[in-house]
């Protein structure tokens, strides 16, 4: 899957989960600062990424993902 395709999928997931229009989401969108995500939101989103892309994300790696762009980069380098 190309990086663009991953970005498109992740934007869809973020838009749905955080109830925000897809065109307002960029690579710099920060889960905590821009989407008001708390720890439960972040774990739920990590599990959703695992379901969508089929690979397990360790707790240590999940903690490092702070923006949409970082999520895309993580999935892209671990596929």
């Amino acid at each position, binding site marked *: 899957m190309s990086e663009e395709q991953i970005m498109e999928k992740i934007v869809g997931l973020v838009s749905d989960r955080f109830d925000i229009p897809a065109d307002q989401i960029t690579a710099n969108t920060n889960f905590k600062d821009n989407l008001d995500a708390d720890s*439960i939101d972040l*774990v*739920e989103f990590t*599990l959703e990424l695992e379901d969508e892309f089929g690979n397990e994300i360790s*707790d240590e790696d999940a903690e490092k993902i702070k923006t949409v762009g970082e999520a895309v980069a993580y999935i892209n380098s671990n596929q």
Partner: protein
Amino acid sequence: MKIAVDAMGGDNAPQVVIEGVEKARDQYDDLEFTLYGKTEEINKYLKDTKNITIVHSDEVILGTDEPVKAIRSKKQSSMVMAAKSVKDGENDAVFSLGNTGALLAAGIFVVGRIKKVDRPALMSTLPVANENDGVLYLDSGANASAKANYLEQWATMSVFYAKEIKGIDNPTVALLNNGEEYDKGDDMHKDAYQLLSNLENINFVGNIESNEILTGKVDIIVTDGFTGNAALKAIEGTSKIIMGQLKKALTENGIVTKLGAAIVSPSLNGLREMFDTSKSGGAVLLGLKAPVVKAHGNADARAVYYTIGQIRDMLDKKIVEQVNDYYND
């Protein structure tokens, strides 16, 4: 109606779980059960496999396990497998006597929240001192920190439950606070008071103080999980000490006191009956995409049986669907 049962959760599992499930199976023809757990352990106690399927699981989530880590790392545990089966549409509800925090995590992360419900709450039914059938009390500890709009949602969801399951036409709802006046409490409680006052579909009667929780004055009490849990533990601790002291006073002070104890014994049994929580069912995680219900870790087979009856009622009355329609239609 299909119920996924975590057969390995609880202090006396799987024995009491299986005894309770078999009693419920014998009572209700429309229930099917899948027991998740160690097959050889389950087979030791299971007498009849009618309407019961066993799915083997190798792992068990312990009471000491850290909840989120446990559900992420123990995917072959009885609790996570039961929750996953509901997520995958194989079963309609999850029942466990196991680790409360882990069940909460499995509920949120595996079964999932109803869209637009911010946080699920743990709702218990507490015994009361009047003729009413208990008080619905939420959140009894799922969310240590809460926002005012969470309490608004919990009040709304619990009203559905009170109407459908307990048959109360217009249930009264109160906010647990440190005084009855509207301006009592911290900012969150003041905001919650305003939000609850503005809700048209609930019968909000204002603040209630913790000394009135068990009076039966209202049908539903909403609170944040921190306050809810602290107050609940205070009640449990106080009643345990009083009952212990009472027993001691009636049995350790000579023949006259013992005779007196024998005379008041029927009344004391009535008191015990009044505060018997087995019939009240389990604690419900309200706000999830399917009923997820927790019975006490040391529950007996009778409590398991009553909790299964409660889950059956929730499925039959389509509580989850009603809440979902309310928020998403």
